[in-house]
């Protein structure tokens, strides 16, 4: 399948190779996230995946999202995760109790989904190319979009964040 993915043609060899390397890192990292016996290792693998995603965004010309990804995900969310891990489990070493007894159930389901998705995508997009001169999206464009047509979802998001802050405090408060 990697032959299909990397059906690199004459142009943009560098990007394709870059994509391949990052993608490989991401997939391996993701597999580590879901299989690792060590919670901290899993969290660090997740960092790898998220950083890889940021790199892919840059490849796709979405620098602003990439920077947000690094700031929010790798910076903030991961710290939250590590805190969560440490506050709930003092143990940093291996644990045997991370998986369900019926973990194997996930394999057929995931493979089935992957099969369907891969089929649909390969069938649907064939070898459609991204525009070669994909210019990066300026932050000003995004801000115009966020504060223009997408203003209502944006406001909704702000409400969600406020609710999350309040909810987090209420839930985690000791009394």
């Amino acid at each position: 399948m990697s032959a299909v993915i990397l059906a690199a043609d004459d142009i943009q060899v560098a990007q394709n190779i870059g994509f391949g390397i990052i993608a490989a890192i991401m997939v391996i990292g993701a597999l580590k996230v879901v299989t690792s016996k060590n919670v901290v290792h899993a969290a660090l693998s997740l960092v790898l995946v998220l950083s890889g995603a940021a790199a892919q965004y840059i490849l796709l010309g979405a620098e602003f999202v990439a920077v947000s990804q690094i700031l929010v995900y790798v910076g903030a969310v991961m710290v939250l995760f590590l805190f969560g891990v440490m506050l709930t489990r003092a143990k940093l070493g291996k644990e045997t109790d991370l998986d369900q007894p019926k973990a194997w159930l996930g394999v057929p389901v995931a493979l089935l989904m992957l099969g369907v998705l891969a089929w649909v995508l390969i069938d649907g997009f064939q070898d459609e190319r991204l525009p070669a001169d994909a210019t990066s999206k300026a932050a000003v464009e995004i801000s115009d979009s966020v504060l223009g047509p997408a203003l209502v979802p944006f406001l909704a998001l702000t409400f969600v964040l406020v609710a999350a802050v309040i909810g987090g405090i209420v839930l985690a408060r000791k009394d």
Partner: protein
Amino acid sequence: MLAHETAASAGWFLDNAFLIPVIPAVAFAVIILFGKRLPMKGSEVGIVSMVGALVLAVGTTYQWIQRVDAVHGGEGEHAVARGVYGFARGLLPQAAEGGEPYVEPVIRSWVWWQSGGLEFGLGQHIDGLAVMLLLLVTFISTLVQIFSLEYVRGDRRYTHFFASLTLFSAGMLAMVLAENTVQLILGWEIMGLCSFLLIGHWWEEQANSRAALKAFFTVRVGDMGLLVGVAILFGAFGTFSIQETSRIAMDPATSQTVLLWAAIALFIACIGKSGQFPLHTWLPDAMAGPTPVSSLLHSSTMVVAGVFLVARLYPVFYNGFDIAQNGNSLNFIAVIGGITIVIAAGLAFVQNDIKKVLAYSTVSQLGYMMMGLGVGAWTPAVFHIFTHAFFKCALFLCAGSISHTASHHSFDMKKDMGGLLKRMPITSGVWMVSTLALCGVPFFSGFFSKDEIIDNAEHNGYPIFFVIGLIGAFMTTAYMTRATYLTFFGSPRGAAAGEHHHDEAHAEEHELGLATVGHDAPADAHAHADHTAHAAHGHDAHGAHDAHDAHGAHHAKPAFGIAGESPILIAAPIAILGVLAVVSGYINAAPFHIEKFLEWVEPRASEFAPAIDHATFAWSKAMPSIVLVVLGFVVSLAISRSVFGDAPSKLKGLTERNAVLGAGHRFLVNKYYLDALYENVVVKAVAYPIAQAAYWVNQRVLDGVVNAAGAGGRRTGEWLYKYVDQGAIDGLAVNGSGKAARGTGGALRPLQSGKVNQYGALLFGAAAVGALVLVIANI
């Protein structure tokens, strides 16, 4: 000659009528944020805001009347109707050719938010209907808030009460001057929320919180109709604007099917909100709220919202149901309205709770309004909103006054009232006047509106509804006579006679010296220990005799003494309403050829409004209803005297002796078994099988799949042991009350056993399979 009309302004008040709901909305925020710190706990903010809104509404009314007179004063001044009105969107309709010119409403609109190219506006659509309701709502709200000052004094959620009351008025006002259907939904839903808060104001008592939930859910059932109806209208017409919608609905080219479906959906919303049959069951239960709330909700605001919606989007209903087609059509609105009149009036006969009599009376009168709209009598129906608001609000406040002062917070007419006529002169006087108005006795306000509806029903070719209207008039008089007799005549009973229900309990409390001010547990909230402070007026509903307060200082009455008239803050609003219950009818008194209301409120036939035909009044036509009213009075009085009077009578206990009458009585007492129908049949027939089916699927199919995949009988055996034996038996053991768990929730219980991952697997697996099926189907 009317050049000033074409200027950019229609008058300051008309242009800025949108401020009317804004004032109470701001006041609501102020009360919520700072109310508790203010000297009067926020009530002053509420009242000031309502007075401010009232002043603006009066100004608006004045300028609207000027505007109408300016147009109609100069016949043929078509130019007037083309006036440019401020920030209107440039809709400049033509006046209808011939007939009286159309008075252009004052429309302003601002973009509230936009999404995906759709703009949602907020604005104002000021026409006669809106002006009338603005005035009505602000006026009644002001009086009710003044009344509440005294009535809920010392309540533990005093500030919240006024906050909800103010927001409630804001919601109604916002809906009344809605420029588009989205704003209409906004106001509608604000009212729904506030009615929930207010009805459940004393939620500590189970019955009250149940009533609040019932009101909320029942109305929600109807609200689905509103959303669907607005969506249909928007989908078909591409606009939210009420004026545009009306114009398109009036357009002969518009598909009648679309209008019909939109009208049905919208009318379902009105059924829920306005307590029409079969969703009227929430309204009497809503009496669990404090009396000022009942009087506000059930006279001028909440429940007339549905009537308002029909009147506002009348072209949709008019053409959708083809109301113009005289008499040949039994249209939905008129049928529902007619059924409601009779059904609700029947129920009013068997109520012992004075507020419930009034509640059913409200339902019945709303039936009149709906029926009026259904038979094409737009103006009489809207006029009935106007007159009904005054006398019904007066009646509710009288009930509150009696309970507050004379009967120890009881509303039971049979147990705790009687003989109050001389003791409470203002209250009883206003009650009498309002009752006469409600019954439609000539020269009181109800006569001018109700009789017009009945008259027009015949005039427009709906003879069936003419008869129903007459039957309703008869029944109205009869049940009101019964209620009046029980309340004011005969000998005082129960609390009205000075008895108190829990004297022993109080004695104990006194001995123990318990200061239970603000205590909320129903059984022991007797705040007697502190006579200077007012106790929680916690529970004035449903035979709750607790929280009886000592009206110490300013009542100048002994704590258990026989009550006199209520204090001024209660009596004054009642008196004002009592006067209005008489005079409000004279705005449009057909017998005296006064038709000001018609002139000011009714939209003239144009591309926005259908032509409304009016019956001409004649005393001869009014005679049947007058005769029936008198007959109802005589019959009911005779029966009431013999049944409830002190003298022995054969009629006493008749329902116990006569099987047929007894069955009828039981049928009425059980509210036609509608509640039982909803709770037992509908809920069981719908929810229970679903729960059962879900249980079955879960047990047999889903788990079966999991296990078959896992393979082997041993596993099945293990599974059975683990889930059925341990799960079920453990569950029973833990519950202790396992017997009761076979209900809906119990059947759904196994669905939520908490096996998150298994359900995740099933969910994703099913999604994948579903996607696969879709893909294959689309190849």
